[in-house]
């Protein structure tokens, strides 16, 4: 809470200091504008086109080629094209330094190109205007390449259209062959099916006839067997009846003899009286066997005949009817690939690939982060060190130290206030860069907060070092100016670090500005994601911690009574 009191007080002090506000906000915008516009040529111009070169064009050819060239160049913000009448006029404009370059398209250029003949355009240049000459020449060459590419693309498109047509016809032919083959195959299948059906029909008729004949034969045989059976039965019954009559007579006589004997014996016994019991039993007459009696009485059983006569008739099966054979036709589809298009290449083009998909740099992409960091460090250095010196000179620092607030909170509160102001300053300057100067903030603008917070932290802590070294306000400015200017220049805040010699770039690794600019370039120009900001931010925070430790040590030494 007490830390917030210090922060609030310091922010209030800052906002009352108009000069400081101008210094941290307006001054960098002015310097960015001046540097951005004046150094635009180094980066090929600015995106707004306000630093574009004038390029007069003379169309001696009279054809459409000049218009195409003019139209192409008009899309480039770094040149401003206007058509003039004669090549003498173009030469005069360059000689009078009114323009740095002028382009002449000689007569017959378009015709030569159409005929496949080499052709040249003429570029008048002022040798003193070196950068303009380079830039315009580069743009003209790019335009030439673009036109050549366009022409090649047109021819290639025609060839491709012809190839497409040929490919379509071959496709049609192939389709016809494939259809014929399909129809033949279908006919063969149909023929086989019909042949099969015919055979089956003949077999069914044959089998029906066989069955009919078999039934007829069986019927005739059955009739004859039954007639023959009835005759045999009849004759057999007559013969049996003939044999039954004597047997039956014998049996009747036997039955009478037995009845007579029984009457005789009864009379005997009665005559014997009492002596009858002594008469032995006479022998019995045998009874005729019952089977014989039944056989003599029963009708003659019929002859047993089979109920149905199974007649097997296996005539020889008729030969199957063969389907008519269809010839096999070899209808393989030939290779219908269209041969590759003929090569049109006659020139070696250079395709520039921005690794990682980065954009083309313009002056403000360099100047906005560069001078923002420069003025950030100036503001922090002056703000922290002069702020602490002011507190010392006013006596308020000792006054605060005599309150219950921990002394470290006094310092931390002051540093935190400066950190907040530094963050706001950077965010505001980047917003101005985006809205006013059209710089890119990359695919993840929020990722810029990482290196911003890193450099603000490192700068804040560095201000404490200066405050610990400089004993007076007068000492702060020269000391701070030397250190900040060197850090900014070597660290690539004012120009691309690649312009520096290798040994200087090695030294630059020891400066926080280098890491901040590296990270800003990665995010804003190379259009990389937040991953690219992690390592530089970690390095910046590490520098900040080292500066903070050193600054606190120096400041404690300063406070120690002598």
């Amino acid at each position, binding site marked *: 809470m007490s830390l917030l009191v210090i922060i609030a007080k310091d922010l209030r002090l800052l906002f009352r200091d108009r000069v400081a506000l101008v210094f941290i906000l307006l001054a960098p915008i002015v310097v960015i504008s001046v540097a951005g516009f004046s150094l635009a040529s180094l980066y090929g111009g600015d995106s707004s086109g306000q630093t574009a070169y004038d390029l007069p064009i003379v169309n001696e050819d009279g054809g459409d080629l000049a218009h195409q060239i003019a139209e192409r160049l008009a899309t480039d913000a770094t040149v401003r094209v206007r058509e003039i009448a004669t090549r003498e006029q173009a030469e005069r404009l360059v000689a009078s330094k009114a323009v740095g370059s002028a382009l002449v398209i000689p007569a017959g250029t378009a015709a030569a190109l159409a005929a496949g003949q080499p052709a040249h355009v003429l570029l008048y240049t002022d040798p003193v205007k070196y950068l303009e000459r380079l830039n315009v020449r580069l743009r003209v060459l790019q335009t030439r390449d673009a036109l050549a590419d366009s022409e090649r693309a047109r021819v290639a498109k025609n060839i491709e259209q012809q190839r497409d047509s040929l490919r379509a016809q071959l496709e049609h032919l192939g389709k016809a062959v494939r259809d014929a083959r399909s129809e033949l195959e279908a006919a063969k299948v149909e023929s086989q099916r019909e042949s099969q059906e015919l055979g089956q029909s003949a077999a069914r008729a044959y089998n029906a006839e066989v069955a009919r004949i078999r039934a007829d034969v069986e019927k005739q045989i059955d009739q004859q067997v039954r007639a023959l059976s009835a005759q045999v039965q009849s004759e057999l019954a007559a013969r049996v009846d003939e044999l039954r009559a004597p047997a039956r007579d014998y049996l009747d006589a036997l039955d009478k003899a037995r009845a007579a004997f029984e009457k005789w014996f009864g009379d005997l016994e009665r005559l014997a009286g009492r002596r009858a019991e002594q008469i032995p039993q006479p022998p019995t007459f045998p009874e005729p066997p019952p089977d014989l009696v039944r056989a003599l009485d029963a009708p003659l059983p019929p002859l047993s005949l089979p109920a149905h006569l199974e007649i097997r008739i296996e005539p020889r099966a008729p030969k199957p009817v063969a389907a008519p054979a269809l010839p096999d036709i070899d209808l393989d589809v030939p290779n219908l690939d269209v041969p590759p298009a003929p090569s049109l290449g006659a020139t070696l083009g250079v395709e520039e690939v921005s690794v990682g998909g980065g954009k083309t740099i313009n002056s403000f992409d360099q100047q906005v982060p560069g001078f923002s960091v420069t003025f950030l460090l100036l503001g922090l250095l002056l703000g922290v060190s002069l702020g602490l010196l002011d507190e010392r000179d006013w006596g308020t620092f*000792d*006054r605060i130290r005599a*309150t219950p607030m921990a002394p470290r909170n006094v310092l931390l509160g002051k540093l935190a206030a400066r950190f907040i102001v530094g963050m706001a300053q950077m965010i505001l300057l980047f917003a101005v860069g985006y809205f006013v100067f059209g710089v890119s903030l990359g695919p993840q603008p929020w990722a810029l907060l990482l290196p911003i917070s890193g450099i603000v932290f490192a700068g804040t802590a560095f201000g404490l070092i200066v405050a610990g070294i400089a004993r007076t306000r007068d000492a702060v400015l020269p000391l701070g100016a030397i250190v900040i200017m060197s850090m900014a220049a070597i660290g690539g805040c004012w120009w691309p670090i690649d312009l520096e010699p290798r040994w200087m770039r090695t030294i630059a690794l020891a400066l926080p500005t280098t890491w901040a600019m590296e990270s800003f370039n990665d995010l804003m120009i190379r259009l990389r994601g937040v991953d690219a900001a992690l390592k530089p931010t970690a390095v910046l925070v590490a520098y900040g911690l080292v500066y903070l430790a050193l600054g606190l040590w120096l400041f404690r030494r300063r406070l120690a009574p002598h």
Partner: protein
Amino acid sequence: MTAPPAISVSRLAVDRGGRRILDEITFDVARGEVCGLLGPNGAGKTTTLGVLSTLLPYEAGEIRIAGHDLRTEKRAVRAAIGRVPQEIAVYPTLTARENALFFARLAGLRGAAARQAAADAIEQVGLEQRADEPAATFSGGMQRRLNLACGLVGGPRILLLDEPTVGVDPQSLERIVTTLRRQAVRGAALLYSTHHMKEAEQLCDRVVLIDHGRVVALGTPQEIVAQAGLQLSADVVTERSLPDRWLEGLDGARVLETHAQGLDETGSFARVSLNELAVVARVLARAEEHGAVRELHVQRPSLHDAFLALTGRALRD
């Protein structure tokens, strides 16, 4: 049983650069008491207040502030004291109210309590009409009063004031003195460093007079005067130059100093020590006799006289 002193300093010793700045200083200040800390330049007044404010280390001695040991309980001591430094230690671009509010919050007050304490402090020093103007626009006297208000804010139990009236006009001086008296009345203990002897006599209940890092006198202003052994004195201005031995033979009177007076230095100024008031008439008669008296002033010995008597008249760095 008497209450323990609000400030208790015993045998305080401070060395700087191999030199002893304070040498066994001992004194107390009770609650509700205004104690003047007097001494010539370089005597050690500011160092004493710096030590008591916890800003400067010390080599030896025992100090208790509001019952807290200064060496081991610095935070508690800081919570008890209000410091009014010699320099105008306020933020020039902040208004009087913002300054007072800031120090109120540092004293641990929050919200409405902090705002009320700031307003009270500003009112006590008579700045309520200009409370919302930046301190940089104030006159020297107003800035002194604001400096005092920032030390008073929150009603500290102990006030350490280092020459808080330097360069102020009589009106501001009167307001500052009145304000400090009120602080004592509410029970605060005030240790008050000043070069203004009249102011000290008017304000202080007791005085600690230090010189060369040592306490040379301690007591009420009257006791200090008595300790210096000073008597009544009379200043005589004459139209003509007085001869060297113009008081010779007059008992109870002794010339302390004499020098020429007037534009053409034809007259004289003489300071005469008197044993008693009755001797004045005879001194007047003798001076009239020799040089035609133009003025005669009789005064009792003051703290200023005692200060000079005890610390000498040699100039200090």
